[in-house]
């Protein structure tokens, strides 16, 4: 039972409520006007799905989703977030994939790396997996040192070439730290994981 939900007397208040949830869930930086436009776009997607009436029963789950359903990819496209990058992040062991993607995308835009967002998301996912596996093998102090080195990378002027070079350097220092080999990709995942954290709103 969900009573007292939403606004029927004021369409504007209803849009603002949706816009507020969009921000809370995605952390996308939006002005009120943009946020309301996104809310309108999502409601419009619903209207379009409601209007669809040519589905023939019986139909498969996949076809019904296409005809009458809204899936996360539909929302990501309204939010201008990469569905491919989202899938890459979901493949890892991290949580809050949409917020992480939004933060990563913001970071990449600032540093002119947006074209690498999918690969960066894959690195981030591989770091999450590595950390999950190695959390019992790597000492707390080594984790601290590793994170500190990654943090230092973020302080300088950032180019992809520099991040790669620094990641390779960090691997040399820490390659024997756990059971699973630490690779430059995993370290890049750590660096961008910390970059995403720094973009939290």
């Amino acid at each position: 039972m969900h009573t007292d939900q939403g606004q029927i007397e004021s369409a504007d208040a209803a849009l603002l409520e949706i816009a507020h949830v969009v921000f809370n869930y995605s952390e996308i930086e939006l002005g009120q006007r943009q946020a309301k436009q996104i809310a309108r776009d999502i409601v419009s997607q619903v209207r379009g799905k409601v209007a669809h009436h040519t589905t023939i029963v019986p139909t498969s789950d996949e076809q019904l989703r296409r005809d009458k359903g809204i899936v996360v990819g539909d929302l990501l496209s309204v939010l201008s977030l990469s569905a491919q990058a989202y899938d890459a992040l979901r493949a890892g062991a991290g949580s809050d994939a949409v917020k992480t993607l939004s933060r990563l995308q913001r970071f990449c835009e600032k540093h002119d790396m947006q074209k690498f967002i999918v690969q960066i998301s894959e690195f981030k996912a591989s770091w999450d997996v590595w950390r999950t596996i190695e959390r019992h093998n790597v000492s707390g102090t080594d984790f601290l040192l590793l994170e500190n080195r990654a943090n230092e990378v973020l302080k300088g002027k950032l180019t992809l070439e520099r991040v790669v070079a620094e990641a390779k350097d960090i691997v040399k220092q820490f390659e024997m730290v756990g059971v699973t080999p630490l690779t430059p990709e995993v370290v890049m995942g750590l660096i961008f994981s910390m970059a995403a954290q720094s973009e939290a709103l």
Partner: protein
Amino acid sequence: MVIAGPRLGQVEPRERAGAQTGRKYEYQYERTARAALDLLTDTAKHVCIYCDWHDDYVIETGDPPTRYMFHQVKGRTSSQGPWDFREFFGVSLKKGKSSRKAATNLKAIVPRMLLHYANFGDNCVGLAFVTNAGLNPALSEFLQTVAGSADTNALPREMRNAFDHVARAYAATNPPLAMSTAELFA
């Protein structure tokens, strides 16, 4: 040339239901959109939100095999007040006549929801009613008491009678919405 007669804005339209009906549909879409946003969180584990298919919206949720949560959305203007027992269960409660079979309004909230259990069995993981309004105190107390009771025997006499009354009405529909008081309670 002088034209006599009132202007459009000077005469009250015969009816204005169209605008209100339109807003009620928009309200349904807005609640569906709000529910769809839960796809963005990891905690909800929602896979898809179906729009106006079997119910106003249906959430497909969980790991495969996924299950369905049906949502009935009803907006109403503040002048209509909160929902009452008859609107919710589709059965009138008439004191002193509770042993007689009452007619069920199959378009009411609960009867429409119960059809999903009949149609989808174990794949129906839940039924929900979404509204901008509230419930009137008697209905609210009734639902809370039912939710907090282990079985119908634990209900206070008057509520037990009301529950039996609804169960009898539902058993009399074709096909029956619930075969017995116990089945409805479950």
